């Protein structure tokens, strides 16, 4: 399907060229490209980006065609792929993983007329715009459900890398759960990869073995959910709606919604006025959400989630005090909130998270 539209577009543009309508014809679609860190079939992070891409293509009709490159390592290879895409005439390039940051900046320097959009980074340039989503908002909501559903009082997180983006999700999940049961604790296993179903599953099984009965993951596959289904405990979907991968174990999915942003970026580019502002959106902006809550989740939990969700959508910040650190010391006083800058560089665990954060000084 994807291929046929692509070929169709090529054939159409060839036909136009032979008819002598010229390359500058207004009907020529804008070329956009997406660089993915995992396979589209991961069912999580990359899949969510690809859904966003498809939504963009659909919204813009024939005005934009897109190319994808999946499984691009976050090493020296990324720069080659991005450069190649720019050289092949793509005018919008979305690099959808943190590790592409420096490669994106390097290529952007040599292609000033191409607009680059980098997900989850912190360095920008005149033609490199950053976008990200506040996944800690749905993570907090998931925590509330976990607090209601856990019998052992032990939650688990299968985590990728100890970077601020992941640390704050672990914190938010734990904070949400502790609003229900203040004695609840969270165990974390680091798998040092974004996508490795085998490792993710092993980590999930290790957590379940330690008495964890509600899991969440900050990795890209559905393996932890499947492990939970097999072992008879609960888990969440992450990045995409993962209900189908473990319908019994699945409590809800914290999903990314990129379609709106991609559509806006493409529309702006077609209009000749590319988007340049950094976007860090959440539930309020419709960039993520908690969806597909399992019918077994009790009414009290649903109500608490709905109320909190409404608060967040109205602009209430998740990281609002009182928040205590792991050692019980007050990190954020009552009535105060962490600034975006602080949230974006957080390197400490909240009370209730067990273990030491790797690399913490």
């Amino acid at each position, binding site marked *: 399907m994807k291929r046929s539209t692509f070929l169709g577009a090529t054939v159409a543009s060839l036909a136009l060229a032979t008819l002598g309508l010229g390359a500058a014809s207004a009907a020529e679609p804008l070329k956009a490209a997406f660089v993915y860190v995992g396979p589209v079939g991961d069912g999580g992070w990359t899949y969510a980006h690809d859904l966003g891409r498809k939504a963009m293509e659909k919204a813009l009709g024939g005005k934009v065609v897109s190319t994808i490159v999946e499984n691009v390592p976050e090493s*020296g290879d990324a720069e080659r792929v991005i450069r190649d895409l720019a050289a092949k005439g793509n005018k919008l390039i979305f690099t959808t993983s943190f590790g592409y940051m420096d490669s994106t900046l390097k290529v952007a320097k040599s292609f000033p007329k191409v607009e680059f959009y980098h997900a989850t980074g912190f360095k920008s340039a005149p033609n490199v715009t950053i976008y990200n989503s506040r996944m800690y908002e749905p993570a907090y909501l998931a925590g509330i459900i976990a607090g209601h559903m856990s019998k052992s009082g032990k939650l688990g997180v299968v985590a990728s*890398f100890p970077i601020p983006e992941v640390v704050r999700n672990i914190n938010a999940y734990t904070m949400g759960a502790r609003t229900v049961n203040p004695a609840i604790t969270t165990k974390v296993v680091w798998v040092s990869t974004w996508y490795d179903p085998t490792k993710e599953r092993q980590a999930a099984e290790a957590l379940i073995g330690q008495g964890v009965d509600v899991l969440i993951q900050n990795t890209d596959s559905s393996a932890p959910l499947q492990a939970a289904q097999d072992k008879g405990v609960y888990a969440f979907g992450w990045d995409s709606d993962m209900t189908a991968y473990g319908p019994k174990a699945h409590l809800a999915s914290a999903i990314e919604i990129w379609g709106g942003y991609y559509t806006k970026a493409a529309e702006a580019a077609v209009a000749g006025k590319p988007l340049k502002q950094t976007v860090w959106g959440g539930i309020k902006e419709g960039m993520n959400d908690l969806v597909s809550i399992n019918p077994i989740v009790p009414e009290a939990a649903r109500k608490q989630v709905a109320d909190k969700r409404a608060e967040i959508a109205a602009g209430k910040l998740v990281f609002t005090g009182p928040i205590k650190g792991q050692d019980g010391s007050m990190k954020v006083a009552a009535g105060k909130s962490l600034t975006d800058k602080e949230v974006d560089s957080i390197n400490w665990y909240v009370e209730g998270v067990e273990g030491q954060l790797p690399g913490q000084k």
Partner: protein
Amino acid sequence: MMGFELVRRAAPSRRMQVLAPLQAVLLTLMAGLGLFALLGQNPMHAFHEFFIAPLSTANGVSELLLKASPLCLIGLGLAIAYRANVWNIGAEGQMYMGGVFATGLAIHFQESWGAFLLPAMIVAGMAGGMLWASLTALCRARFHASEILVSLMLTYVANLVVKYLVFGPWQDPQANNFPLTVEFQDNALFPLLAALGWEWFEGTRLNLSIVITLVAIPLAWFFCQRTFAGFQLAVAGVAPAAARYAGFSASRAIWMAMLASGGAAGLAGVSEVAGPIGQLNDRWTPEYGFTAIIVATLARLNPLAVPVAALLMALLYLGGESVQIGLQLPKSISQVFQGLLLMFLLGSEVLVRFRLRRRHPTAHAAPSASVSVATAAGEKAA
């Protein structure tokens, strides 16, 4: 009933030793055409996109060389080690340590060492790779531990060392707690060929580190073919008992093999961190150390064939990317090609030691010397 049978040759065929890899490549290409057709593509068009398009621009050629260079360097080291029957599987980890040692100098002596910084990093990187390899050599030579397991396990340890450093003491304070070091300054980076006045490479990433590889190729060949030490290593590999009888020290062979392969891997590590990456970070796991094992095997441990094998592996990788971008085919095609190539190579190897003979329905004279085609096919599949 007419058929063919395999007959063992009196001595391995020299002609087939050269022809077997070529035959494997040819069969791979033919299978590739069929594969593209099955995927619903015009085979010739896809073929062009896979094998020709990546090489059609200066940038493509430079990317190929940039990718092949570390594979070649590590492959040369491994070829030397494997000739001595020392199975260093941990070149990946030795490469990490090369990168770590070079990074240590790059971020601590950026200001003070000026133009001497890069040469010092090259030496330090090689030393780092050798040091890591020497742990394996020590375990094997002193305690008879399996070098396969020790070197492989040490790769994971090396990866943890990298992680510890970039999450801890070497982290860039400006990096929002992300695991990276500062970006290296110019005096800690290999100069780009384009910057040295080679206009053909304008706008490409190819850098001077390729010279290290170009020098290493004849050196490795000379070491293997023309030095006494190289001869000792080869004897230790082919006939350990004869080597002992001749008074060649077995532990010396192990040390030499590990240090040579570790040093080469360390150099590859420097060429990466001081080349296209330009910093140390926790995502740097290119697996060149593992791919180079295939390179050395494909080259039949011949140092002059290693560069060819490295270029071929690099091309398979770039080709996979190219068909994905151009035709939106899955990138796993690269791995399918790698698998096909290895399978056909193993199959073709049979013809080095056996020859094909038409079976005569009447003659069953020497069954002990011949193998039926069915067994040969089985061997091929294995």
